[in-house]
């Protein structure tokens, strides 16, 4: 089977738009709702990223921390996450799903066992926030061997030389962090600057699908639509928090938000 992540980008390109990638924390605000949220936004997104909650996240902003906290409080475990991925894929076979988390959760479960389980339930890709190049070489190979896309990250601080090395070993999808920040704060740089950086990455490796993440909201998404893909995370997590605060249904609210986001990149 051809890597479905690769196909997704091709299809989006045919429609002359970036792929839309959502990020939510699996189990936020509870197991049932988080699966309902994903099912309800599935028609408007191309790829779903599901976060594995960890209680010592060193790179997440407040919104995602809140989401992780809710998920953990409601008892989310890796076992549940795998079951939920399986359920999601059953209804949305053509929609790739990427799990994103901190290395500790994988290390504790056991790398080989983790990958095996991912493959079994239909996980298409993995992002490990704190397992950066070159420390991720072996793990990336293990992913490749099991047809799981290991997504390398590139940051504004990444030197050109390092970028080249990372792109050389990377799989089809690469995640470009828009700014020096944890997830989810307001954009500190102009969208123009972000696109400039994006072009540098693309120039080195035109064949890779480069997605931009961090600080992308309803306001900024339209100006970044020349990218291969855009990740919206904190804005969605914030919508869940807001819905809960106002005693509204997070499923319908997130669904509306994602629809709006999608309309801005068409």
């Amino acid at each position, binding site marked *: 089977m051809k890597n479905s992540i690769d196909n997704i980008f091709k299809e989006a390109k045919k429609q002359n738009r970036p792929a839309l990638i959502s990020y939510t924390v699996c189990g936020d605000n509870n197991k049932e709702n988080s699966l309902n949220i994903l099912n309800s936004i599935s028609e408007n997104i191309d790829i779903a990223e599901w976060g594995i909650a960890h209680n010592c996240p*060193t790179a997440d902003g407040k919104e995602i921390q809140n989401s992780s906290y809710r998920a953990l409080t409601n008892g989310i475990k890796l076992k549940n996450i795998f079951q939920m991925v399986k359920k999601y894929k059953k209804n949305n076979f053509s929609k790739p799903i990427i799990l994103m988390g901190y290395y500790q*959760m994988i290390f504790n479960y056991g790398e080989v066992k983790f990958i095996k389980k991912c493959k079994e339930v239909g996980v298409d890709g993995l992002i490990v926030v*704190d397992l*950066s190049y070159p420390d991720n070489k072996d793990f990336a190979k293990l992913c490749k061997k099991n047809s799981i896309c290991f997504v390398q990250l*590139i940051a504004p*601080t990444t030197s050109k030389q390092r970028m080249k090395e990372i792109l050389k070993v990377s799989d089809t999808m690469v995640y470009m962090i828009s700014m020096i920040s944890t997830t989810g704060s307001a954009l500190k740089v102009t969208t123009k600057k972000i696109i400039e950086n994006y072009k540098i990455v693309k120039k080195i490796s035109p064949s890779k699908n480069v997605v931009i993440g961090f600080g992308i909201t309803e306001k900024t998404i339209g100006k970044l639509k020349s990218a291969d893909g855009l990740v919206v995370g904190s804005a969605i997590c914030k919508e869940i928090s807001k819905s809960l605060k106002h005693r509204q249904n997070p499923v319908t609210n997130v669904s509306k938000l994602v629809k709006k986001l999608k309309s801005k990149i068409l």
Partner: protein
Amino acid sequence: MKLKKGINIIDQHDKFGFYCNGKFGGNFVAETARKPIEDLSKLFEKLRRSKKFLKKRDFYFKHYLGGETPFFKLNNLTKYLGGAQIWCKDVSAINGDAHKAYHATVNALICKESGKKFIAGDTGAGMFGKNLALAAKEMKLSAKIFMGTKDISRQAPNVKFMREAGAEVVPVDSGSKTLVDAVSECMRHYVSNCDTTHLAVGSAIGANIFLKICAWSTSQISRELKRQLIKEFGEIPKLKLINVIGGGSSALGFWNEFIDYDKKHVELIGVEAKYAAPLATNAKVAILHGAAQYCLTDKEGQIAETHSLSAGLDYPGSSPLHGLLKDTKRARYTLASDKEALNAFKLVSKLENLRPSLEPAHAWSECIRIAPKLKKSDVIVVNNCGKGYKDKKIYIENIGYYPE
């Protein structure tokens, strides 16, 4: 796995920053922080080999921190316990009241060298926070100190020092509201500001470079002690070096110069708090705050909550370097309960003119436990690494008094 002789323990890592064949340490950090950390590593390696920088460090240690801390025999405690000779390396006599003064000062010096104007650090007991605030003031840097709200309340005297020195104390209200959360928040701050801010990690933890800077700085303690022992005894006598372990920064400084000695000659004993004791209880290896280490976790891999009366010890992880010392059996790790630490404080402060903080009170507890079983020719040295003023309220609440 064996320790390499003649090579400083901090340098016994591979090119990826791992100790013990990949078991401990490493650089588990987000891509954004990679470059700043690499830059810092290069700068530190350059500075530690620069005579000019070493001179500057020594100048600050001498004139700003007050120079060599005292080493003396505790005659009353020795007599009372009736076994080994008990000596005290009174690191708490330093300007800054704890060993944290060394690496706070060094971090501020490095920050200055790097050209950055902002410095950020985490603190539990407030000793590192206070010293970092003071060093930042001295060197005209702007400091942000991250501290759990539980610790802000229980270590109020140190918070006052930080604020008076002009530092911004950032309260951290997530998770257990203690050191572990303060470190996480401080690291997040660094990820967001690594282009302008120097990260000063408060203990010998974190990605490789941070624990190296810390242990390199505190090793001043053992350099002094070695000189002082030779002056007193004419040689290095048969020793037991007892030190409390939170993250492990003071022990690494206290032991650094003695690691190459045979353990029958110089025994290294680390004392953890009973419910925050990853080393003494053979916890699993986990990745926390950028490094692989012995760490308390739950079955799922989430970092466990700890409990200690002592804010400085209330931390689920441990330095990767202590993992190395444990696995090579060079050091032995044990634990002491809150009650044992309080009792140790009572006895030590009654017999001697010492007021240890809750952290070294744990080390004193182990000293009291083992001294009676030893011979007169045995020498125990305890690192009295922190002053008790900050815990006055806790002592009064728990034992009813604080001796002035």
